[in-house]
């Protein structure tokens, strides 16, 4: 691969990635044998972290490019199947891989809001947005706003929302990378973050979207193998059934028996209950609010939407959404099983055992920044349920050790978590840097900038954003899943309405879209910051991870009312919208809107 993606490379993708997946499995087997021969755990942890990052770096370097369309949209040659895998990795971040099953472990049914919210949004993407944005065929999401709502104001508002949402999101990913590298390399968290940062930068800096795309496909393969193997292993070990998604019905049953024995008042599978196990309207409302915000947020996050700019045509963009959700589904329908198996293992192997007999993993995890605490409160030397406090961010990573699986599985899971966090961080970083370099620098500051200059600006911004993100992550602002949910709310409140109405309602005017964006995003941000930092009371008991519940309706109402009060868009603009709606044919550009 030189400057441009060659046809033979695209034709042989199946063979290339098939060989790669085989190679990775071989690598895991070799490490498993080495472990049996007595190679220390630390060495195995190092191998997983460095070798996988090495592979990503290699792909990143051979994909380097100085072509604008390769850098921004991977040359628009990515087949739908592989774009689906890349989107899967882009999508599934530290939150999905590391925290989601942990959330399910702690919250039971309540955690399923994440599972539903983070899958159902793709229906919105596929039906409402992806094919039309592909037809539009520019480089970034703010590009669309800038053309549809003629001018810099809409583009600029889009960039602001994009920046706030993606930056919050990237901080969460860097935090996740910090947890993994800290634990598996045995170095302090604050340093581990910067080691992870190098991993992010090598993938995206030289090759932009092209490098990120092909790295993400590689990362998807690793993360899905890493997620499935430990659960399949446990399922076979306990029930002789290699399909954990079917077997965990029995696990839920056994958990139910433990809950009776341990006198747990909040059952795992009970819906909409508070900590006392009673039906609660607050939980009920929050469940729906979260599902809605995550779904709408999915259809508003620029790093996801821009993946559909890379397919060869509109039809492929649609099919690609199907493949995306399929590949995401593989992990998401396993996560509740993962949580159930982890819970069963904790109830069986940890609770009720003498504290002095607990294995080494307890010690190892206790050292990673207070994420696991064990305190013998009643001094009887036996670990009671209330004395075992585990953070949701380490349940997936520690489960293989809790269940007594070989250490090589722990290393594998760490590599998977790292792949998930790195791939998402790369996508986000690229979305931010592209918006700043393409939308702000090129479209607003210096429209005459040469290609080389634009690409250099893009890379410098990429590095700067990454460093700032890592610095913020070092302060540990909040849990991973919480930060990610904020990002979804911010994107949903600010971008969903102008994007969807811009395509589906020709009457949407520039003034309507801009005021709608500002009001919707403003309300969302006000609620988030007010409740989080200034002790503002919650409205109707809705938690701030679902802030968009208030921002979204405001955005809709304001956009529609203001649009109806202002003069309808010009005939040219209506023709332009018409031309976006039909897959075939030229776009009818409105004179004066900036496009390449």
């Amino acid at each position: 691969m030189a400057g441009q993606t060659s046809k033979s490379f695209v034709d042989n993708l199946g063979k290339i990635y098939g060989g790669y997946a085989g190679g990775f499995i071989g690598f895991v087997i070799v490490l498993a044998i080495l472990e049996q021969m007595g190679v220390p755990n630390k060495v195995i942890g190092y191998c997983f972290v460095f070798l996988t990052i090495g592979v990503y770096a290699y792909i990143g370097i051979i994909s380097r490019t100085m072509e604008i369309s390769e850098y921004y949209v991977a040359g628009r040659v990515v087949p739908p199947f592989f774009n689906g895998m890349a989107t899967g990795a882009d999508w599934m971040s530290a939150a999905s891989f590391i925290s989601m099953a942990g959330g399910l472990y702690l919250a039971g049914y309540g955690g399923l809001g994440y599972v539903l919210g983070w899958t159902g949004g793709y229906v919105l993407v596929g039906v409402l947005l992806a094919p039309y944005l592909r037809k539009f065929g520019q480089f970034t999401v703010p590009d669309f706003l800038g053309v549809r709502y003629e001018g810099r104001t809409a583009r600029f508002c889009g960039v602001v929302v994009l920046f706030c949402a993606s930056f919050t999101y990237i901080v969460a990913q860097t935090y996740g990378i910090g947890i993994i590298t800290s634990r598996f390399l045995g170095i302090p968290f604050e340093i581990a973050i910067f080691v992870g940062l190098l991993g992010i930068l090598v993938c995206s800096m030289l090759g932009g979207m092209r490098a990120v795309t092909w790295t993400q496909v590689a990362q998807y393969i690793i993360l899905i193998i890493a997620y499935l193997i430990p659960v399949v292993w446990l399922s076979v070990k306990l029930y002789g059934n290699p399909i954990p998604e079917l077997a965990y019905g029995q696990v839920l049953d056994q958990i139910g028996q433990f809950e009776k024995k341990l006198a747990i008042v909040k059952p795992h599978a009970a819906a909409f209950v508070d900590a006392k196990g009673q039906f609660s309207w607050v939980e009920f409302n929050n469940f729906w609010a979260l599902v809605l915000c995550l779904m709408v947020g999915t259809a508003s996050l620029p790093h996801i939407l821009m993946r559909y700019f890379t397919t060869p045509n509109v039809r492929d963009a649609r099919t690609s959404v199907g493949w995306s959700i399929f590949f995401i589904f593989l992990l998401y329908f396993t996560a509740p099983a993962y949580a159930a198996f982890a819970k069963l293992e904790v109830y069986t192997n940890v609770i009720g055992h003498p504290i002095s007999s607990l294995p080494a993993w307890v010690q190892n995890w206790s050292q990673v920044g207070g994420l696991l605490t064990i305190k013998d409160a009643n001094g009887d030397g036996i670990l009671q349920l209330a004395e075992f406090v585990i953070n949701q961010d380490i349940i997936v990573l520690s489960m293989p050790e809790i269940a007594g699986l070989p250490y090589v599985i722990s290393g594998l899971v760490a590599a998977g978590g790292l792949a998930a966090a790195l791939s998402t961080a790369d996508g986000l970083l690229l979305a931010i840097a592209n918006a700043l370099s393409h939308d702000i620098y090129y479209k607003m500051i210096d429209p005459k900038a040469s290609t080389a200059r634009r690409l250099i600006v893009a890379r410098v911004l990429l590095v700067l954003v990454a460093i700032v993100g890592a610095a913020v992550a070092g302060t540990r602002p909040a849990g991973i899943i919480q930060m990610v949910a904020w990002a979804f709310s911010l994107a949903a409140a600010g971008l969903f309405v102008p994007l969807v109405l811009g395509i589906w309602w020709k009457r949407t005017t520039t003034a309507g879209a801009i005021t709608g964006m500002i009001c919707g995003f403003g309300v969302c941000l006000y609620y988030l910051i007010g409740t989080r930092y200034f002790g503002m009371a919650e409205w109707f008991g809705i938690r701030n991870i679902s802030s968009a519940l208030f921002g979204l309706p405001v955005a809709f109402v304001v956009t529609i009312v203001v649009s109806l009060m202002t003069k309808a868009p010009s005939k040219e603009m209506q023709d332009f919208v018409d031309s976006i709606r039909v897959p075939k044919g030229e776009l009818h550009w409105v004179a004066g809107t900036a496009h390449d």
Partner: protein
Amino acid sequence: MAELTPSQREAYWSKTSRLMWTIMVLWFVFGFGIHLFAVPLNSVSIFGFPLGFYMAAQGSLIAFVVLCFWNARAQNKIDQEFGVSED
């Protein structure tokens, strides 16, 4: 290639919109509707799963995957019918 006439375009877009609304309704049913009944559904058990839990953990997810592929297929058919699908 000839562009669509305004009336063809209208017909194309009304078919597309109808598909969109159909899928949105199903999306709403699987994303929200059935989970409203999670509490009563949980008293039913299939393969050891409480049904309400199962629907949120797997059932709806399968429906979403099917909806996405179905949308792509149905929209391609509409495109072909109007001769606006890409070569």
